[in-house]
């Protein structure tokens, strides 16, 4: 891990800050902690950080406001939301508002580790994109944006509406890139009900970390991509077509669509 990478953790509970910084620092990553969200914003504009972990329910200024402020100030930094009020609504809202990930409290060491790893990888990818853009070297970008007519939940998962109320969903190229070496995928069963913003599959990476894949919409699974169990690389090769994960019948698409971003709007 690069030594110059530093994480900022914002939470009003000191015990969380202690636990997170203890784990993160043993991994060799530098960490700053802050209980006051306003002070944290000051720190963000003063120092360079690679990743922010931010609580949602905080006095004075909540996590969503911090997220908005970061975007308003055009600070280019990935944010992962953590909250004790771990509802799917909070997860979905976080991702919609620009967070790259969401970890519900209480989380285990492994869950935190995998999320931080993905976050830092995200930061690195973002940096590469910026560099490539400034050097006009588009070929250096290793991930593909999702096609138009697709919708995405944050930068994690995508959905494409097919005919007769069926939708196909899968993981974005960016998400797969942040995982670094996908080894295995644990899928749910046909007829299972999935919920928007809730984990619907576990991606296991080569370093044995488990990455929760958050579903872009809620519904009932009618088909899984069985090829994936034999040919996991298909996902990374063709994440938007052959690498689909589930076919589902959405339960309340009208509601879920409010939290999705159209891929047509973010073509580079």
């Amino acid at each position, binding site marked *: 891990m690069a030594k110059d990478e530093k994480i900022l953790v914002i939470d009003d*509970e000191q*015990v*969380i800050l*202690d*636990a*997170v910084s*203890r*784990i993160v620092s*043993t991994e060799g990553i530098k960490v700053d902690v802050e209980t006051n969200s306003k002070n944290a914003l000051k720190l963000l504009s003063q120092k360079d950080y690679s990743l922010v972990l931010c609580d949602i*329910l905080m006095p004075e200024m909540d996590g969503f406001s911090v997220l908005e402020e970061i975007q308003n100030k055009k600070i280019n930094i990935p944010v992962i939301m953590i*909250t*004790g*009020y*771990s*509802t*799917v*609504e909070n997860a979905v809202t976080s991702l919609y508002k620009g967070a790259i990930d969401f970890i*519900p*409290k*209480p*989380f*285990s*060491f*492994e869950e*935190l580790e995998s999320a931080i790893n993905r976050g830092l990888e995200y930061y690195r990818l973002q940096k590469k994109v910026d560099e490539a853009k400034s050097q006009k070297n588009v070929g250096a970008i290793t991930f593909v944006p999702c096609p138009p007519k697709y919708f995405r939940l944050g930068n994690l998962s995508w959905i494409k509406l097919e005919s007769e109320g069926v939708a196909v969903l899968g993981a974005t190229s960016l998400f797969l890139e942040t995982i670094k070496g996908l080894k295995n995928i644990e899928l749910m069963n046909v007829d299972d*009900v999935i*919920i928007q913003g809730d984990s619907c599959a576990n991606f296991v990476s080569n370093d044995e970390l488990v990455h929760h894949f958050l579903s872009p919409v*809620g*519904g*009932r699974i009618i088909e899984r991509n069985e090829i994936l169990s034999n040919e996991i690389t298909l996902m990374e090769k063709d994440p938007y077509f052959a690498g689909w994960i589930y076919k589902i*019948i959405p*339960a*309340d698409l009208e*509601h879920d669509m409010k939290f999705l971003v159209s891929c047509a709007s973010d073509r580079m």
Partner: protein
Amino acid sequence: MKIQQAITKISLKLIIAVGIVTIAIISIYSFVSIQAQRDELLSQTEVYANKLSETIRNSTHLSMLENRSDQTHRIINTIAQEPGLREIRIFNKEGRIMFSSQKEFIGNMVDKKAEACYACHTANEPLEKLPMEERMRIYQTPQDSSRILGIINPIYNEPSCWGAECHVHPQEQKVLGVLDVKLSLKDLDTQIANSEFRSIIFAIFAIALLSIIIGIFVRKWIAKPVNELVTATDRVGGGDLNYVIKDLGSDELGLLGKSFNNMTKKLAEARLQLFQSDKMASLGSLAAGVAHEINNPLTAVLTYSSFLLKRVNNADLQEDLKVIVRETKRSREIVKSLLDFARQSVPKKSNADINEIIESALSVVDNQIALKQIKLEKNLDKNLPRIKIDSNQMQQVFINLLVNASDASKEKEGKISVSSKMISLSPHGTLQIKNAICSKRHSLMDEEIKVDGMPTIKLKINQNDKEGFVNIDPIYGKSRNNYSFEIKNPKQTQIACPKCNILLAVKDKYCPKCNSTIFSFEVPPQGMFEGCINPNCNWERWESIDEAGVRDYIELKIDDNGCGISKENLPRIFEPFYTTKGQKGTGLGLAVIWGIIDNHDGTINVESELNKGTTFTILLPVNQQGS
């Protein structure tokens, strides 16, 4: 006792009113009939008097002609013995009394101004011919109380008189004298007085009888039911919404009683719903708070323990740490489910077969039911459509209700029946508008002003340059609209979108009920909704819904023959933390069930009778095409 007085007042008023009418009718009737009777009796007496007078004149004619005055006297005296005859007298042309049944008056002169002479002697020249009716007179002498009928009969100069040998009367004389007969009217007066007396007695008796009858019926038909209604109003006003008026019959008051009962029932339901929403909301925030507070320390425990588990090489320590990690993760699941319980606002719905859910719930409680040897009856309609529901939550509902039913049932005797079927209900008063937009696609929903906890539709209204808002009731057909100012002229009120001011009034179309301005907005995807702006009119139309007609629901019933729920407990069973199971229950089960059903736009009702059993009825809307 004030009620008693009020009732007495009503009956008293009625009695007085009817009494006055009765008195008037009886008085008029009596007056007319007594008058007729009086006239009849008098005319009879007159005829009698006239005949008598003629008889006297005829019988005395011969003795007069023969100038045998003693015989004339005798005749007069004999006739005068007739009862009721007061006096018979004959006086000559000069007015001297020649004959009288009362001897002392013989020879006296009669005053020409006196009663008897008046008829002929009013004019200066005395009349010689007198019509029959004018010969009579009725008068009362001061010394005597009874009235007297007098009849005069002129004795004309007939040829036999002036042709007689005595030559007493010259031929030129027309009238020789006058026969005056006086009859006492005492009997007649007594008869009339008696008849008047009878009439009065009859009137008093009739009024008294009517009063009693009115009193009895007023008490039976008005006082008792009104009393019952007043008591009921007091009880309901005091908060006892379980009070039921017993059957008051089928008259207007009976109908009032029935509609009162209906109102109380609706009120109780509304209060329960309101109370539930309130409780669930506070329970939700409580659970959210608890979850948040517990999750922070749990995070510390989980992160440290899982971190240690990774770093420690000691196998014993690893085992111990694994327990800590496992149990902390279990706590996490408990907190998560608590949060899921509380946060029922967004059920995770998908199309599901309700019968399958019931079957899987039954498989969970099968053991318990079999162990108690309770008979289970299933009556599931196999042709039910799949509906959008949260299968897990719905399963929780059935497990809960089935466990309750099994707990309530006696071993070996118990019987639980579960049924599902389709029913159809009218959309009026049940369907809720959840989304409304103006023609420029601005949302009209208002979260600030709510009706029964539901967001309303906010429209801007403009009347004579006065601007305000109206919040439309989201339930189709209920029209509990909220106006920010009083609408005086509903025909000239402008209605617009509060955001873009685009007019929402329908052009050239007026309310079919009251002819006022009507507004319309779109309810995506269920078409246009129209309503009348007049606060006193409840006209609303939702064409696509009306066209679809009645809405289909799936009705689910869970029925047991167990111990039942007492009347006092029944309204409280859906309250959070209310339990009759003591230590065994948390008191959350039915409250959670209520919340789940509510979030599925459904309703849950309970009917129960102590020691007879309990029935829970759940209605779930069947999602219609396009909704």
